């Protein structure tokens, strides 16, 4: 009886099933905030200088285009947006109202070239994550209602807003 009992104990020591090697896990988690920024370059004026006038009738002639120097800009979020707003060039020295012959307003076309992607005037345009140079160009100057522009200094404003989003 004792021999049988010893045999049973001996067998039990070898009957333990094999176990998987122990493991433990650690998580490493972090967040990169969405942001947009200008790395280099400054806001610059689009200076057309003295605008060309058709001498024959005083209407606005072709004046080409002007571009800002490039700025290095980035937005790191996939849901980042760009908004472009532009106000017409208005006469700063002669604020007379537009009449049947003359106007104090000159319109223009705005283009924002951000790393090869072009954006016109508009709010909340999809941008995504993008980094590169940003150049603003004004072109195709036209007097409002095709009238003759009053003499004087004109000024408009282009506003580019970059909004980060993850």
């Amino acid at each position, binding site marked *: 009886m004792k021999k049988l009992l010893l045999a049973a104990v001996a067998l039990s*020591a070898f009957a*333990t099933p094999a176990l998987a*090697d*122990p*493991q*433990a*896990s*650690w*998580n*490493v*988690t*972090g*967040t*990169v*905030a*969405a*942001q947009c920024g200008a790395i280099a370059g400054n806001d610059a004026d689009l200076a057309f200088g003295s605008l060309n006038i058709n001498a024959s009738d005083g209407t606005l002639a072709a004046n080409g285009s002007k571009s800002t120097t490039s700025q290095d800009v*980035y937005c*790191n*979020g*996939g849901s980042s947006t760009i908004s472009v707003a532009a106000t017409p060039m208005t006469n700063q020295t002669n604020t007379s109202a537009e009449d049947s012959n003359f106007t104090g307003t000159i319109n223009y076309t705005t283009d924002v070239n951000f*790393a090869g992607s072009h954006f016109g005037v508009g709010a909340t345009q999809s941008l*995504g*994550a*993008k*980094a*590169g140079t940003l150049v603003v160009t004004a072109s195709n100057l036209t007097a409002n209602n095709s009238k003759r522009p009053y003499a004087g200094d004109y000024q408009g404003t282009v506003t580019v807003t970059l909004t*980060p989003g*993850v």
Partner: protein
Amino acid sequence: MACLLLALLALSPAGVAHADVLTVNAKGTIGTSCTLAASSQFAAPDLSASGSVTAQASVNCNTGFKINALSANGAIANGTVAPANFTNLVPYALTLSVPLESGTPNPITATCASSTLVAGQSGCALSPADPGGLSSGGKASINKTATLTVAYTVPALPTRLIAGSYSDTITLTIAAVP
């Protein structure tokens, strides 16, 4: 005479003592035992610049052992596809330091790039497919605290990290090597 013979016969069963020795050996086996537990987790890394974070593990092995590591992503990673000039990966180096009961070196350490810790890799001591792993050289480690250090490197400009949440999971496996 007849009386004497009867007396001898009567005494004979108890007259000679025969020794009957029973020998019992006491035997037992202490099995190898290795356990591993995460005793502290990593703090959230500041991904605005390169840096490091640490965590700790409780090691309890009554025999020699080896440890391998597995990285789920091979880097601290974001699931968003990164466009040009951006990346969604923060590579790191994992250093594991495990104190031993005795021996030299003590503690044992290994440092491996996160890219070598993905499944199937064997290029570093901690690599999951490295057969030797980080070996204790036959030494035990009883209730010791091991240290894990993740030294991460953010990309250099002009490459940037895309915004969002980044993560990786590091799994250590310990195996007895008597």
